[in-house]
């Protein structure tokens, strides 16, 4: 079984682990990094529930192998809120009743984050097409479209941003921007996984 050391950043924290080369990035995030907010709805790249940001761009984490993300900077749904303060997109989803069972929601949030960065003033049609890569079975999409429009409004008034991929890449190359706390977290993760493997 071909194991690889993998080091990557998720939500500005570094994670290190050892995984089979065939392990998908989605499984690595959920199992090895214990960030279970990223969901798997189809594992063949259609439903979008596993959408995350990789170096600032929305990607399907079920269609990447963890080894491919070595040194990458990822953002998952857990990295949206600022402590107790929901991100404006999360706030808009809450106020617009844009989720029911909530399983597809993380994917929609991450897609929206990348979309609004590129297109801050979308029309409803543009929103509907931008969201077409994410399936939702509960809401019929209408309230999600409303929420994304509302989030765009909030964006204009509050001007929130996500870190640009390039800056992050530089940090990674420097490789030393992690503090002790995250180092410990990284090591702890590795230990835990070893005990699980036995």
């Amino acid at each position, binding site marked *: 079984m*071909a194991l690889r050391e993998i080091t990557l950043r998720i939500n500005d924290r570094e994670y290190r682990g050892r995984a089979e080369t*065939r392990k998908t990035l989605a499984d690595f995030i959920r199992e090895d990094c214990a960030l279970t907010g990223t969901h798997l709805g189809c*594992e*063949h790249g259609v439903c*979008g529930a596993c959408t995350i940001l990789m170096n600032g761009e929305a*990607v399907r984490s079920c269609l990447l192998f963890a080894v491919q993300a070595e040194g990458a900077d990822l953002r998952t749904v857990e990295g949206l809120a600022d402590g107790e303060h929901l991100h404006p997109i999360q706030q808009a989803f809450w106020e617009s009743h844009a989720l029911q069972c909530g399983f597809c929601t993380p994917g929609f949030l991450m*897609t929206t984050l*990348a979309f609004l960065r590129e297109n801050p003033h979308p029309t409803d049609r543009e929103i509907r097409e931008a969201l*077409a*890569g994410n399936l939702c079975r509960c809401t019929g999409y209408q309230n999600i479209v409303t929420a994304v429009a509302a989030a765009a409004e909030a964006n204009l008034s509050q001007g929130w941003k996500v870190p640009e991929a390039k800056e992050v890449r530089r940090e990674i190359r420097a490789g030393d921007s992690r503090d002790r706390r995250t180092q410990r977290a990284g090591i702890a993760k590795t230990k835990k996984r070893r005990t699980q493997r036995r």
Partner: protein
Amino acid sequence: MKPAPFEYFAPRSVGEAVHLLAEHGTEAKVLAGGQSLVPLMNMRLARPSVIVDINRIPGLDYITPGPMLRIGALCRQRTAEKSAEVGARCPLLRDALRLVGHTQIRNRGTVGGSIAHADPAAELTAVLAALGGEVMVQGPKGARAIAASDFFVTYLTTSLASDELLTEVRFPAPPPGAGWSWMEIARRHGDFALVGVGAVLALRDGVIAEARIALTGVGPTPVRAQDAERLLVGQAPSEGLWEEAGAAVRASLEPDGDIHASPEYRTHVAAVLTCRALREALTRVREAS
């Protein structure tokens, strides 16, 4: 739904990649965007024992303008779609790219990868065929160019040798003032089209000087509609002429059916879309002049 085990290599140069391909032969698969390969691997329909991940090879993500628009093997579909050069020199490619999957797919998927995967329903294969483009490949014995007409062999199969790597795709820019159109019918936004048509029209002195038409979803490879093209050249554009071109396309196709569309449907819609594409292309010619 988890992939079977494989050995993973991330070469840092084209030479290294080609060496790995030569070493592992048909057991090796090249991984670029992975948006078609990884689903097949997750479902264990594809079980390559070796993966050669070319994503860490520097300098392959370029778009170089020129009489031939040259797109490097690692240029993401999304990058090409947003590129000013592509928009200016090859709007047919840009319009087709917008209908490839969804943003999340195009952020990873590469132009070269889509061509090399050779899915006859994929937009880009028909764009390459319509424009009469070519691909550059690198093998142990060096580089060679393969014309689109020689490249696509059948479903998911090309004339790439197992030890060759596609390094660049070349799209000839249509003549100045040419009009273009991409038309397709897909069940849902972002799905593979049931039928897709790409058309390019150029006029000189009010008659059609050049006509290029290629279709997806109507055969084991993208289909160039040469009968229709011949029929158009030298004629003055007219609704009647479009109908004739559509009829020629209808007559030339023998598509297979699947659960979404019968051969009859595909043939019929191919003709309908051909007319519509030519109509739109002509409008663009007139807008240009």
